[in-house]
C-alpha cells in the first residue's frame, strides 16, 4: 500500500504510522504514570511527592514511547550528502548580489578574514569577481540598477 504522506508540525509523516505512534505513545506513557502512581502512593509518605515522582516516571514513559516509535517507524526523509560544487558557487555570487547589492572589496577585510577565505578556497572566487567588476564597469552599473530595483 502506498504511504499517505502529510506535512504535520513542520515535517512529513505517514498517516498510518502517525496513528500507531500516537497510540503507542499514549499507552506507554499513561501506563508508566498510572503504575508508578499506584505503587508510589503506597511507598512514599507524602502523597504530593508520590504524584510528582509518578509524573517523572510518566515522562520517562513518553520518551520510551517515542523510542519505540522511532525504532518501528523510519523517518520520511530523503537525506543526501550535499557538497556545494564550485560551478554552483558562481551562482551564489549572483544571489548574494541580488540580496545585498554591492559585495564589498577584499581590500577592506582584516587579515584574519582573508586568511580564512584562502583556507576555504573562497578567496579566488571573490578576487575573480572583483576583477570582472573592474573589467566591465558599465555592465555592472546596469546590473546594479536592476538589483536596486528588485530589492525594494
Amino acid at each position, binding site marked *: 500500500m502506498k504511504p499517505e*504522506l502529510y506535512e504535520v508540525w513542520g515535517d512529513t509523516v505517514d498517516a498510518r504510522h502517525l496513528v500507531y505512534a500516537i497510540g503507542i505513545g499514549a499507552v506507554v506513557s499513561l501506563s508508566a504514570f498510572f503504575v508508578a502512581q499506584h505503587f508510589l502512593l503506597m511507598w512514599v509518605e507524602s502523597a504530593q*511527592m508520590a504524584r510528582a515522582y509518578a509524573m517523572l516516571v*510518566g515522562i520517562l514513559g513518553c520518551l520510551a514511547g517515542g523510542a519505540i516509535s*522511532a525504532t518501528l517507524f523510519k523517518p520520511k*526523509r530523503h537525506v543526501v*550528502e550535499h557538497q556545494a560544487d564550485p560551478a554552483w558557487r558562481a551562482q551564489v555570487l549572483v544571489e548574494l548580489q541580488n540580496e545585498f547589492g554591492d*559585495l564589498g572589496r577584499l581590500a577592506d577585510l582584516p587579515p584574519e578574514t582573508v586568511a*580564512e577565505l584562502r583556507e576555504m578556497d573562497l578567496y579566488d572566487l571573490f578576487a575573480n569577481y572583483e576583477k570582472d567588476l573592474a573589467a566591465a564597469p558599465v555592465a555592472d552599473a546596469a546590473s546594479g540598477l536592476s538589483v536596486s530595483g528588485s530589492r525594494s
Partner: protein
Amino acid sequence: MIAPLLEQIVIALGMGILGAVIFAGIGLISGSDETTTLAPLTLLVVLLGVPAPGVLTFFLAGAVAKHMTHAVPTALLGIPGDTLATPLMREANLLRKLGVPHIALRKMISGAVIAALIAVPMAVLFAVMLAPFGDAIKRSAPWIFLAAAIAIAWFSKGRLAAVLALIPFVLIILGLQALTGQFGVKLSVSYFLGIAIGPLIAALFALLAPDERRSMRRSEVRTFSLSPDVKSAGGYFPNPLKVLDSQQSRWTAITAVISSATFVFSPVAMTVILGELVGSRIKHVYHRLTTVITARNGVTESTYIAEALIPLIAFGLPLSPVAAGPAAPLFNAPPRFTVDSATGEVHNLHTLLSTWEFFGYGMLAVIVAILIAYPFTMNYAYRAASWVTRKISHEAVIATFVGLILVIGIWEGGLLGLLVIVTVGLLGGFLSRFLGFNIGVQFMGYYTAVLTVPALL
C-alpha cells in the same frame, strides 16, 4: 556555615550538568521550540522539590546549551533548530551555498559562548539598577500585566487583531477556571502546556478535517541535504576568540550588552534588529554573513539569559516574553512558587536567592553549559545531525509530545486537566496560525486572566 553552602553548590552543579546534557540533545532536533521543551521540564524540576539554586542552573544551562546545539540543524541541514534560530536562516543558507556550513556553525557557537559569558554580569547589573523601582512595580502589577499583554499583542504579527483577540482568549481561560473550580480542580501547568504545544494540537485536529487534510497532503518525502563533515583546526576545544576575528568578537560583545538591557522586547525581534545593525556596518559580503550570524546567535543567548534573570532579580514577576513563556515555572509553579495578583506578594526564586547567588549560580550554569555543549557541537555536529535525520522519525517526536500532554494533563487535573490542555491548545494554535496571535501573547493573556482580572473584580 560552609557545609550547607557546599551542598547547594554541588546540587546546582549537578542540575546544571543535567540541564545542559538534556537540552544539548533537544537542540539537535529541528523545530523543537524553546517554550514547549524548557517550560514543562523546568516545571518538573521545580515540583520535584529541587533546591532553588538547582532550579536556576537547570533552566539557564538548558537554555544556553540548546542555543548552541540548535546551530547544528540550522547550519548543516538548513532547517531552523528552534524558534530563535529562524532569524539566522538567511545567513546560514547563503554560507551553506558557498560551501562553508562548518564555518557558520563554528562562528555561531563561538558567538554564543562570548555572549552568554557577558550576559550574566550585565543582567545582574541592570537588575540591580532596576531593583529600587521593584516595589512600585509590584504594587501596580495587575495593570502592568494588562499593559504588557496589550503591548506584546500589538507588536506581534497580528497587530490590532491580536490585541482584540486577547478579550475572547482571556474569557475562555476565565470560563475554564470557573468550570474546573466547580470540581475543586485548580490548574496552571495545563494552561502553560496547552499554550506551548498549541500548534501541534491544532495541526493534529486539522489532519482530521478533510479539506485541511488535502492541503497538508504531500506526494513525496522531503529531501534534506546534509553538508559533509570537515575536520577543523583548533583541537577539541578551540578558543572562541580565535574562531572569530577581532571585529566579530567586538560586535558580539556589543550586541550582547544591548540585548541584555532590552529585556522587555521579544527575543526574535532583538535577534533580527541587532543582526541588521551589525550587517549595515560591514562592507564585504562574506564578512557580513559570518559576522551577522555570529552576533545573532550571541543575541539568542544574551536575550534569554537577561530576560529570565532581570525580572527574577528585580521584581519576581514574569515581566518579559521569556519570563512569561519558557522561564514561567521559575516565577509561578503552584503550590511551590506563587505570585499573588492583588498584593504583588511573590514567593519564588526572587525571594529564595540573593542577587549574589543569582550572579554566582548564573555564571556556574553558563560555564557548565559551555563546557558541555561547545566542544560537543564543535566535534560531533555532523555525526549528530546525520543520526537525528536518519534515525528519529517525526512520528516518534509527535508521539512523545502527545504522551507528555496526556501525562501532564492527567497528573494535574485528571480528565479536566487533559480537556483544558486540548481546549487551550486548539484555540491558541488556530489563533496563532490565522491571526499571528503568537505563544508569547497567549502567555500574557493567561497572566491577564489570573492576575489582572481578579484584581479588577
